[in-house]
């Protein structure tokens, strides 16, 4: 199969940033688009949105066009996903497929047009969140990777890594444990604390197992916001400098 989990030893090298993971969307060729996708991954409570807000500011000051995207923000799917979550009628497959539809809608309506126009797309979570959640729920891995074969490999994926203990404290300090983030649909037990712990532990395991496969750049999420932001800026700055240098036609450069 042409998806990203080829069994050949050099499967990782088949992932090309800015291209589809698998066969992609045949009617939407995207190669050569100037925009970039930068994804920030990590479980709830690791501070993704704060980092994205600061990054956006920094990038715009430098003159980069930026758009943000994130799960369930599609016009098409948001009401349906909210309703389905509230009514608790989802099973693991419909859960996965609703989210994939949301992603497809945002990909075609927001992400691809932005890439074409040369924007930097800051993605608050990416397909890896969907894969981690599905993995925990026992959805077939190969099937999942084929499903997201229409996804575009980001140019950079940062994974804000945290351990279970630190995560629990952060979540309790902010907004508390909610039904879905505690994996209560998996009926691991009535105790929301135990359920949250078990669920988040398996989620973290899933994310860790994807780090090599998808080339995550792992950052320690326990460090201070500013420290993480500095590290993000350093790596993103280096990446953008490289790609600006290689894409700049000679005549346009200032001598």
């Amino acid at each position: 199969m042409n998806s990203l989990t080829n069994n050949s030893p050099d499967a990782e090298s088949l992932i090309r940033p800015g291209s589809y993971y698998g066969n992609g969307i045949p009617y939407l060729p995207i190669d050569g688009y100037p925009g970039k996708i930068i994804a920030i991954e990590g479980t709830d409570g690791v501070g993704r949105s704060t980092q994205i807000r600061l990054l956006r500011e920094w990038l715009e000051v430098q003159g980069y066009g930026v758009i943000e995207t994130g799960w369930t923000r599609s016009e098409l799917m948001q009401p349906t996903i909210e309703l389905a979550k509230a009514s608790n009628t989802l099973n693991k497959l419909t859960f996965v497929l609703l989210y994939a539809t949301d992603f497809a809608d945002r990909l075609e309506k927001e992400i691809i047009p932005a890439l074409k126009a040369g924007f930097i797309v800051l993605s608050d979570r990416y397909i890896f969140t969907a894969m981690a959640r599905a993995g925990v729920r026992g959805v077939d891995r190969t099937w999942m990777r084929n499903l997201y074969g229409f996804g575009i490999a980001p140019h950079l994926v940062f994974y804000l890594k945290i351990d279970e203990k630190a995560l629990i404290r952060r979540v309790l300090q902010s907004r508390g444990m909610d039904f879905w983030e505690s994996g209560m649909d998996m009926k691991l037990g009535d105790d929301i604390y135990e359920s949250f712990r078990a669920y988040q532990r398996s989620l973290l395991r899933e994310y860790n197992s994807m780090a090599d496969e998808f080339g995550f750049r792992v950052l320690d999420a326990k460090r201070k916001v500013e420290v993480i932001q500095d590290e993000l800026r350093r790596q993103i700055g280096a990446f953008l400098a490289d790609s600006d240098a290689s894409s700049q036609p000679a005549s346009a450069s200032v001598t």
Partner: protein
Amino acid sequence: MLNNLTTPHDYPGKLFVVEGIDGSGKTTQLALLAKWLSAAGHPVVLTEWNSSALVKAATKTGKKKNSLTPMTFSLLHATDFADRLLYNIVPPLKAGMIVLADRYAYTAFARDAARGVDRRWVRELYSFAVKPDLAVYFRVPIEVSTDRLMARRVKLKFYEAGLDMGWSSNAIESFRIFQGKVLDEYDRLVEEFGLSVVNAVGSITEQQRTFRRLVSQHLAIEETNEQLDEQLA
């Protein structure tokens, strides 16, 4: 990948599926089959393509705004299918009942590919589906199906007519182009998935006789042609 769709299921029930383009008469044939099965004392459950409550709102929003793309169209239908498989198809099969499906995964394979979605991707997407005991494809030329729809004064809808693809702004013309592509895709599926083909141009009774003969091979129903003619008269 999963290979449920290509491996026989081991539920005690039976799954019979009809496929074909709009106006092929498959729904009529399925209704007659259901009558026959019920009369013979078989508990029958019917399930229709794209009928689950789960995706209704999103499909409606998308259709109203004409904002569905071939990919979101495909994924919404897969979501609907997964929902019905879990709630409406697998439980009756487990209970030893007969499930009659008006369109199945093959409809997605034909339509989505006709819209330019990757063929292999859609097939793998539906690889969680249960393999039908029998899938009958009612094959009909476009002229015949269009005439039937026109005679019933069916108003061609935006997506059904493939107007989202921009092949033609004329609904009937667009419908013909789209259905032509869908027919080509169905032809590939016949061999790939072993669909039984019924010539859907013939008389309703004739088709139903063929259909029942095909189905009876999977059931302990003995039926003579005379009985069949009597019921259909």
